[in-house]
């Protein structure tokens, strides 16, 4: 009888402990989701040889790899100095429209062409390409990887 009571107490206490810990984990999981602020990280890697011109020399940049943090909003990216995001690719004019959203980036090719996993996209102002986390696109000899990040 005594053992039975002790067993019941142990099981009852363990049950409360398990429920309490489970609820606390659930609460922490929700809190971890709510305090985050999303932004996108763009990792750019040059696949070919880096240019050795004056601008790269002056800015002390290797021209091989760059990282860029994009908050939510709308940006133009291209290979002219007038573009908000400068892509160091030579050759034909490239101009992209980036709509940075919380879950995805909506990309439109305004000028030039880009390559993704699904194929090559030519300039088409009406076409919207969805870019998700870990998506890679290739512009000229530049490879861009989009990573979704969250910070407080």
């Amino acid at each position, binding site marked *: 009888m*005594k*053992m*039975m009571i*002790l*067993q019941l*107490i*142990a*099981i009852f*206490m*363990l*049950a*409360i*402990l*398990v429920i*309490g*810990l*489970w609820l*606390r*984990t659930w609460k*922490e*999981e929700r*809190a*971890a989701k709510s*305090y*985050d602020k999303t*932004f996108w*990280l763009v*990792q750019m*890697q040059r*696949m070919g040889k880096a240019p050795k011109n004056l601008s790269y020399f002056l800015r002390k940049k290797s021209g091989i*790899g760059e990282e860029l*943090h994009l*908050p939510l909003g709308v940006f133009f990216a291209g290979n002219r100095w007038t573009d908000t995001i400068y892509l160091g690719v030579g050759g034909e004019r490239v101009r992209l429209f980036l709509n940075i959203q919380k879950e995805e980036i909506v990309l439109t090719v305004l000028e030039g062409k880009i390559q993704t*996993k699904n194929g090559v996209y030519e300039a088409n102002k009406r076409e919207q390409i969805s870019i998700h986390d*870990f998506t*890679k696109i*290739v512009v000229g000899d530049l*490879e861009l*990887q989009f990573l979704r*990040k969250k*910070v*407080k």
Partner: protein
Amino acid sequence: MILVYLCYVLALWLWTVSSVTQEASAFWAYFYLIVGLAVSGILIFIAWRKRKNLQIGPMIALTLANLGASIAFRMGEKSISGYLKDFAYMAICFLVVFLVVRFTKIYRWKLLNILCIAALPMILYYTAFKGAEVNGSHLYFFGIMTLGIILTGYPFVVATFMASPEKHYRNGNVRNLSFNMMGLLIYTFLLFGGCALCNEYGLLLVLAMTATVIFFIRCNNWLTKMLYSAACLAGALLVCKVVSHVHDRVVIWLNLKAAVESEALAEKAETALYLFRNFKRMGFYGNGIGNLPESIYRTLNSDHVLVTVMNDYGLFMAIFMIVLGAVFVRWMLIEGKNMNAYDKYLNLSSALIVGFVILIHIASNLASFITAGLGYPWCSDGTSANVMFTILMAVHCGIVGRRGRNELQERYER
């Protein structure tokens, strides 16, 4: 919460000591252990009263350790004294690792990570060729189980490979497998070779499952994924065919009736058979502590600890034990505020390792999978494995417990 925990500790202790009679030395070892577990709970509660997210994991570990202590007491003086020593090691390791990860960046040093990458295969191959043989397996590296060493080091290896920037791809095509992913796969296959030589297939299974999840998250190429899956399947089939004891376990798992009727397998199938025959008798409240026969379950305090809990402590305790394991993995998967790529992969691979060990243990204990020889965290006897789980938990606590802004945030704000 702390009061409930203390009540549970006291009730379980009283229930165990009134059910099992042991020598005075075993009684006192169990008493000191229970005092240590209770004091640890109070310290954790006080130290992290404002950081409640850090309390969850250690509290789960302590709750499971109480059950482990009770099972160790049931086994006798040697077992409970060993668990008392293990508890001291675990406490020291937790404190040291937590402080290192929480306050320093030493664990991210490239040199240390490269040393870790080099050391793991060397340890495995050294154990395979020079280590002492136990029942046909080479499991110990200078007295420490290789399983514990490899599984402690592997998350750091994964984080090192995965957090390094992807610069090169196979055939120069970005859609192909990146060189760092390829490096991790080759490295893991090197470890598989070591595991096979050591005859340590439980470790191989956990490594394979962890590497597969990481690989499927990171790899973009479907063809590579298919080839990898085919290679894994072929490897598993080859092991089942070539390695006799794995083949026997597979036969027992898939066709218990044939295994029982076979002369060669009848003895090995006894554990699964006992479970099926006595499942109803176990009931929600169990048969009493010390009821499970040691003659059938030779590893009842390590590889078959879930069956011991089901039989001796009842189904309720077993269910709560499984739920606690699930909650622990879920807690480990919660990402902290200031985690960079290295920390994220370190955390993810640690959580995957703990999760897979728990999953394999449950499945093999319930005869839903082959007997894999893996213990349940903190409930099973085994210094190396328990210290390994404690270190992985301390790493998570250290990463999540870090305050202040991270590098990414500072750059973003600039």
